[in-house]
């Protein structure tokens, strides 16, 4: 695809390549899900946690290999990424200056994401993680809006800071396990790092990935970053990139350092509980649509890490479901905000109002996104949250219970900020007579919004398959953690 973009000369060709490329990816991901299920039927998860595993040595002296493989978790994450890249392409259809370069970086970003999800080698994972970060800087810095240089710099620096912690952690794991491989599966199987050492490196890796997963108090890049990023980048960033954090925390930090995870979970549990409530409360008083959503993401991604740290099978399944659901919902949200911004040229909710009359399609989409976000049954948010709450409650002690109950309050606060926004911008009187001349969505925008709504509703109405695929991936990891 990159290659295709390179050759593409004019706008139409660029668009064509993007559509073909992202459709291929989507088709491949869907095929992968079926192939995975098919293969899983003959190969139970206990014996073969990773399917389609391949390994090519890459850098012998450090035993780095390009090893790939998928389990239930990565399959759904890949599917999520494909959906978002696909819809993101349509959402940035009308992007004007330097379209080719934009899509080039966009594709590079998605390559990093895909690479991260399919790799089973720690170092290669790290490399793809970096690949995903760098284009971000350019995408925000060049095509962004508002205070873009500041936001781009801040985002990149904070995430780079996170990856500095990561590399320390990864090297720590590698040397102290005495492994002759960087492969996550093999290191986990050895399970021989002393507990004291684990306790040193666990925070490194957890925080390193946690920065990306908007762990309190390392989340402040997210409001600025999201607010300045162009639509599709916001979609991909909030939708997929933030999931890298949760995925990494689970796959590397908790899987490879299980004893430390058990012992130190309480610290991070407190932080994530704060994230959940704090993000939601902050969102209540924001006035910029993207800030509201960014804080909402802090709250929802906080819930992902929160659920992972609960370390029960149900809660972890819920966490992955929440990643999937939040990815789709936020992508939808950012797509819609981008479209509204593109018309009104403001995201300040005090200056908007009565949009329902002017652009009914976008407004209905926004209402649906809002309702999905506050956990309306029938949409994906509901099943994810319920799975998390039920799963968290399985822990019998008081500490986990109280944390769960505190996290439950977020469902009320979420309703407050969502309805506040919806009421302000969509209903009521038209705030500015100029808005009356604005038009509703174009076909490409409609298409991308409809796709996302379809996915959110589909996952929310028929959650069984997703839940089963995810549980299948979660179970082997948890059996190591709760050893």
């Amino acid at each position: 695809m990159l290659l295709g973009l390179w050759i593409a000369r004019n706008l139409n060709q660029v668009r064509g390549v993007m559509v073909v490329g992202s459709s291929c990816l989507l088709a491949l991901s869907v095929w992968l899900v079926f192939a995975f299920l098919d293969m899983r039927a003959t190969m139970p998860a206990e014996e073969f946690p990773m399917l389609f595993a391949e390994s090519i040595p890459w850098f012998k002296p450090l035993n780095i290999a390009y090893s790939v493989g998928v389990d239930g978790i990565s399959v759904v994450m890949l599917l999520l990424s494909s959906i978002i890249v696909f819809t993101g392409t349509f959402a940035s259809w009308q992007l004007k200056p330097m379209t080719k370069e934009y899509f080039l970086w966009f594709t590079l970003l998605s390559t990093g994401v895909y690479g991260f999800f399919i790799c089973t080698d720690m170092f290669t994972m790290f490399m793809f993680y970096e690949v995903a970060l760098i284009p971000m800087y350019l995408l925000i810095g060049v095509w962004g809006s508002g205070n873009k240089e500041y936001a781009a710099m801040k985002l990149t620096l904070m995430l780079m800071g996170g990856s500095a912690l990561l590399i320390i952690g990864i090297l720590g794991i590698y040397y102290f396990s005495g492994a002759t491989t960087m492969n996550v599966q093999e290191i986990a199987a050895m399970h021989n790092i002393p507990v004291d050492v684990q306790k040193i490196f666990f925070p490194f890796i957890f925080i390193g990935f946690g920065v990306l997963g908007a762990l309190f108090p390392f989340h402040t890049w997210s409001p600025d970053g999201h607010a300045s990023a162009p639509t599709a980048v916001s979609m991909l960033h909030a939708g997929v990139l933030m999931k890298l954090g949760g995925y990494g925390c689970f796959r590397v930090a908790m899987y490879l350092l299980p004893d430390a995870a058990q012992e130190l979970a309480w610290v991070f549990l407190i932080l994530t509980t704060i994230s959940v409530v704090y993000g939601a409360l902050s969102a209540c008083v924001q006035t910029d649509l993207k800030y509201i959503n960014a804080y909402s993401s802090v709250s929802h991604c906080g819930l992902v890490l929160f659920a992972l740290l609960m370390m029960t099978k149900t809660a972890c399944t819920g966490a992955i479901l929440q990643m999937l659901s939040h990815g789709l919902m936020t992508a939808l949200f950012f797509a819609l905000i981008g479209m509204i911004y593109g018309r009104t040229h403001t995201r300040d909710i005090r200056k908007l109002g009565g949009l329902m009359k002017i652009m009914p399609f976008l407004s209905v989409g926004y209402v649906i996104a809002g309702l999905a976000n506050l956990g309306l049954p029938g949409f994906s948010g509901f099943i994810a949250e319920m799975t998390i709450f039920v799963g968290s409650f399985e822990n019998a002690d008081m500490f986990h219970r109280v944390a769960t109950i505190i996290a439950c309050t977020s469902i009320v606060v979420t309703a407050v900020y969502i309805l506040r926004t919806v009421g302000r911008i969509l209903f009521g009187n038209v705030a500015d007579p100029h808005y009356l001349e604005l038009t509703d969505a174009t076909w490409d925008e409609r298409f991308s919004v409809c796709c996302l709504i379809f996915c959110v509703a589909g996952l929310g109405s028929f959650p069984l398959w997703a839940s089963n695929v995810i549980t299948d991936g979660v179970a082997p990891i948890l059996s190591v953690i709760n050893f």
Partner: protein
Amino acid sequence: MDYSFVFLILLLPLFSFIVLGLAGMKMPHKTAGLIGTTSLGIVTALSYYTAFCYFTAERGADGAFATLVPYNFTWLPLGQLNFDLGIMLDPISVMMLIVISTVSLMVHIYSFGYMHGEKGFQRYYAYLSLFTMSMLGLVVATNIFQMYLFWELVGVSSYLLIGFYYPLQPAVSASKKAFIVTRFADMFFLIGILIFGYYTGSFSFSFAGDVVMADGTAPFIPVDVMKAVAAGGFILPTALVLMFIGGAGKSAMFPLHIWLPDAMEGPTPVSALIHAATMVVAGVFQIARLFPLWVEYAPGQMSIVVWVGVFTAFYAAAVACAQSDIKRVLAFSTISQIAFMMVALGVCMPGHHGEVLDNHAQLGFMASMFHLFTHAMFKACLFLGAGCIIHAVHSNEMSTMGGLRKYMPVTHITFLISCLAIAGIPFFSGFSSKDEIITACFAYSPVVGWIMTGVAAMTAFYMFRLYYGIFWGTENKELHAHHTPHEAPLNMTLPLIVLCVITVGVGVYTTIAGFAGWGGSFGSFVTASGAEYNIHFDLQVAATSTIIAIISIALATYIYKGEKQPIADKLYRTFPKLHRAAYKRFYMDEVYMFVTHKIIFRCVSTPIAWFDRHVIDGTFDFLAWGANEAGETIRPWQSGDVRKYAVWFITGTVALTLVLLCI
């Protein structure tokens, strides 16, 4: 009997919602309305057929109707627990099917006239279908989690319908308020469910493990109550009380009632359907559903239900006496009447382990369900009647009305009949159900009995104040000069007549049956134990409440019937503060505004947002600034000036040598 067709009862409204939601905008109004109404007509027919089959089927050995589960499947596995969806038929759910489908069908027909020519007509019918589907799903739920799911869906349909007139600011605020207040209560419901599910090992409504599917297998894991009791005696009561808070939010019990009066901003037929007859009784239904657990394991906590109910009934009746907006009067009346149902459930005597529930001691359960049924019919009729009036005079304020009886005879007669029913006059349905509730209250405690009798008297008073204010009194000459109010079209009056016929028919039969001691009354179908139980009216209670009701009506007649109302004016002048406080609903809204706006927004959210932007973000910015400054400081050192390097080199060498020498 094969009940496999019942899935259509849920799927048809869902189907019509999807069709209207996706393609509604392209349809003409009539088509959209017909799609909604037809599908609901079929649903109503199916519900009646289900009820007919169910209640004519043979009873079990203990005299109860069997609980059937035609469908149940796992929707989402949650570890050891399962999130099931299914359909469960037992006397209360079948009764609710009839109530919901009847009122909903009437509202669908009525809306043809009421919403005629409104923008968004199709959207309106789509929401109605969504609501009906969710409400039906709620009552046939096989487990508490399914109930919660549909509970949220009715909440959102209510939100969408209250905010139907979205360009109007009051409607938007009211819808927001309704959703957030009920959502707040739902949070407790959810926590209650979590506790309940964890300790009993199941979410299902199979408390005794005797629920079977058509093929004889158990459809779901039964609730293991003993496990919860073994874990601690306080656990089940805690879970039940938390769920009750959820129910109190939906059923607008004090202090969570504040959303309901505002919800009157929605179209009037919606108020009739959602905010009078069906959704607001969901809380009552929830307690009735969990009733076996309440009486066996939380009898002490039932007094909470009683006293919350008693206070709410009194409070709402007092406020209703002073409102001037006719829909607000009806809204507070609804709150008060739902509180009657709550009280009735609460006053049931505790059962004993292993024994069949004693119907006599648990009269309240039957009375509550009966009142739910009768109230749904007459209150829907009142609201729809109010809709006709608002349609005629284009205002909700009682002051713009008066003397309408000449212009709107059908509305007048049906409104009067419903008022008599709610006031509790014999031969109208409200009498039988209210009388049973008061009898049950007296059996529980004379104090509660007398308070409820008093509230019943207030009910008669404010309803007739309303009635006289609308249909009698001074005509609004100014308004009539513009255009004469006229009777509503047939599609609006027909539902009124149907609901009235039900009210009178049920009233006449049950009153005679009650005095004569016949069977076939409500108690033949729905009782606490399931066995048939027909009460013989307690003449003393019946006579007292009737006399008191008649006295209050007479009082209302005396004060409000005339063209001039000297006594009413005098009362306002004598107690201006009391009147104002009651008119302002005793300032409950102001208290809430204070808590939410001043405390939560100003004192929690704003500081948090500030803290985030300035302290946390500031720290990182500071770090970045520090790094930058450090870089700036170090940069001149790399000046490329060889002499400077030489100086540093020599100084360094000397220093190093000195250090080494010293060691």
